[in-house]
């Protein structure tokens, strides 16, 4: 009986040339009736005529789907016939299997495989195979999840326990255990520091010791941000940014750790290793201010932010070649002073996360316009917290613009590895002796701190005077020193 299912559902055929529906006029049989092949079972009215439909199979009527008077679409089942009425109880025709069987065309199109045979249609919308239900075609659609699934790493990834799978009666012998793992503290499982491999590489490249950091990542692991913050020598936003919360004893205790700790260590290392001497010089920078205005007015400079800081930078870059020792490093380990020809000019920048000192590589070779672009980019990047680690290392000379804080000058501390740092203070209108008369001029104070092991007072003074001279008359300086 290949191809004929037990319960056949008869679907309303197209009764004449592209009709889409028909109305059930009159049932000629009822549920429970026995029908023979070709016995008329129903009258259907179409748009064209009233038509009698003969039974496609012999058997017993098990279900009538639509009442008289209903309009039915072509292709919808209208009657079900039990083709083996003597074979015992009829299975529930509303089960998926019977409905799916109705999907099996009894008269296959040419070339198609007969239902139920290999390659042919099978119940449930599958394709028949020799060995089972056959493959099903599924829609390419995801099932909806509850909420947001946790990332795999954070979910309870099962930790493997030793496979003690022998019968429970056996008593476990005391096994000589290896060194006990340290209790989980500060994210150090098993005594080691936790950090993803890429973060470890970053730390190595930046010269950051992972062991000194506290991790803010999963399982207490150290993140990329943690490393970068440590490398910039600054820590997270200082406690002053948020109001202190005092305890009952009216004291707040802030743990010294992480970036702050590192920064402090660096500072201490620098301050108490290199003997710092600071020299000050007041300068009339009126001509610098005018030069800046002139630049702003130039067509080519219209899109560029220009400030006196640019001229200060140029002044320094112009002076360094004449006093190369100010651009060097005291290297006690190797027993040498390393003097550099390239100037990686660091600009201390105040950001939300604190002070960072990104530097412009080989700034001495940049024409003024490119120097301006580089300085603006550097500041913008720093303010948005996106300074790349490489830009924060390798500096050789630093300018710290304390003027933005509104103070006149300061005694800056050398960044580790540098020989000199210039503090550039606020520019104020000040009474000044100019060409023999008292005039109101734009005056600022320069403060130069230097490593007295490398730079003596005379060198420091002369360098500072040259920088000041540039700022006093930039045009003359450029003419004279290029």
């Amino acid at each position, binding site marked *: 009986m290949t191809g004929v299912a037990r319960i056949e559902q008869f679907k309303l055929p197209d009764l004449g040339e592209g009709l889409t529906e028909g109305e059930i006029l009159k049932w000629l049989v009822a549920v429970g009736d026995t029908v023979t092949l070709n016995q008329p079972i129903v009258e259907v009215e179409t748009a064209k005529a009233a038509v009698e439909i003969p039974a496609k199979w012999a058997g017993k009527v098990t279900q009538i789907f639509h009442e008289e008077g209903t309009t039915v679409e072509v292709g919808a089942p209208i009657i079900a016939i039990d083709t083996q009425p003597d074979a015992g109880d009829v299975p529930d025709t509303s089960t998926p299997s019977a409905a799916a069987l109705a999907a099996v065309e009894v008269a296959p199109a040419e070339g198609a495989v007969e239902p139920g045979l290999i390659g042919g249609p099978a119940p449930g919308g599958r394709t028949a195979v020799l060995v089972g239900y056959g493959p099903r075609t599924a829609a390419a659609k995801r099932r909806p999840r509850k909420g947001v699934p946790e990332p795999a790493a954070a979910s309870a990834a099962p930790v493997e326990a030793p496979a003690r*799978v*022998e019968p429970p009666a056996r008593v*476990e012998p005391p096994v000589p255990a*290896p060194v006990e793992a340290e209790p989980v503290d500060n994210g150090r*499982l098993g005594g*080691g520091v936790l*950090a993803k491999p890429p973060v470890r590489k970053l730390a190595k490249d930046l010269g950051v010791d992972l062991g000194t950091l506290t991790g803010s990542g999963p399982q207490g692991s150290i993140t990329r941000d943690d490393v970068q913050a440590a490398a910039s020598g600054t820590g997270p936003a200082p406690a002053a940014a948020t109001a202190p919360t005092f305890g009952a004893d009216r004291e707040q205790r802030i743990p010294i750790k992480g970036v702050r700790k590192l920064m402090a260590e660096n500072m201490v290392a620098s301050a108490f290793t290199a003997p710092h001497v600071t020299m000050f010089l007041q300068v009339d920078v009126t001509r610098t201010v005018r030069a800046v205005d002139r630049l702003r007015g130039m067509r080519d400079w219209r899109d560029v932010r220009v400030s006196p800081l640019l001229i200060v930078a140029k002044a320094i870059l112009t002076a360094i070649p004449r006093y190369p020792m100010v651009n060097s490093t005291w290297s006690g380990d190797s027993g040498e002073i390393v003097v550099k020809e390239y100037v990686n000019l660091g600009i201390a920048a105040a950001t939300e996360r604190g002070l960072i000192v990104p530097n412009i590589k080989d700034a001495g070779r940049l024409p003024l316009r490119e120097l301006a672009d580089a300085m603006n980019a550097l500041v913008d990047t720093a303010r948005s917290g996106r300074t790349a680690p490489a830009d924060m290392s390798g500096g050789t000379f630093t300018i710290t613009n304390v003027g933005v804080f509104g103070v006149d000058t300061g005694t800056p501390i050398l960044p580790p590895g540098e020989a000199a740092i210039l503090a550039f203070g606020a520019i104020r209108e000040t009474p000044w002796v100019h060409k023999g008369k008292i005039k109101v001029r734009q005056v600022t104070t320069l403060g130069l701190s230097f490593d007295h092991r490398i730079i003596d007072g005379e060198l420091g003074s002369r360098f500072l005077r040259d920088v000041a001279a540039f700022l006093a008359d930039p045009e003359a300086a450029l003419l004279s020193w290029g």
Partner: protein
Amino acid sequence: MAETLTLGKALNIGLRRAMERDPKVILMGEDIGKLGGVFRITDGLQKDFGDPRVIDTPLAESGIIGTAVGLAIRGYRPVCEIQFDGFVYPAFDQIVSQVAKMHYRSQGKVRLPIVIRIPFGGGIGAVEHHSESPEAYFSHTAGLKVVACANPADAYTMIQQAIESDDPIVFFEPKRRYWEKGEVDTDAPLSDAYPLHASRVIREGQDATVLAYGPMVRTALDAATAAAEDGRSLEVVDLRTLSPLDLGPVFDSVRRTGRCVVVHEAPSNVGLGAEIVARITQECFYSLEAPVLRVTGFNTPYPAARVEEEFLPDLDRVLDAVDRTYGW
């Protein structure tokens, strides 16, 4: 009492103990009776336990395993010997289609407490098909358990534990180590023995973790000895159980050392090392200083005897891998 025994002799005595304990334990294999086995592992057992319990079988590996299934259904505990690793393949269907699946398909009603002993690995200067490492095929098959002993003490206890287990176990024996000696306490009760499906740290160290099983455990220990002279301390773990793997101690070790090298004779492609590396990477990701490296046989059929020493991992290749883990 501790005796100094070869690994082969330790297996022999272990089999004897198992047979003494349980009359349902029977041995079957080619040449295991009168000859005592081509490696003498079953020497003297047929004489003492008789022909029906130590069966010299026809030359038919599928037959050995297939009849063992029937015997197990009948209530026996067959211990089958496959004479050489390269000859297990005719029995592969019975092992993976029948032995592995029957407990599952019977929903636990059928138990097949079958042990399939297979001498494996190379390094004995043999001709083709006598130096294979087929452990991955069986470890990959759900329903089988797979273990590998590496020293006489473990051989003695593990063979008895395997026979006692109600699960089917493929029991790999490192044939090149059959004649190496070690201390074995043949009086200690089996219940005191180290568990069968557990790995073990056999040498402590701080600088890197080396994982091995079967014949490569000795190689790994030798590498650690040599490394110590260079001032590097290696921790060596004998995996012992290949399916299920017991990686808890391995994870602990890698979290301490941050570096790991896996050693096996079988080729790297889709070998056991690949599975181990995947799991270590997943569980120990934050602890890794370097990727987990594998030192394995090459992805060729096992070569001719006169170049096999170049093919097999040796002390130098293991230490080279350890060095490379320091290059990241």
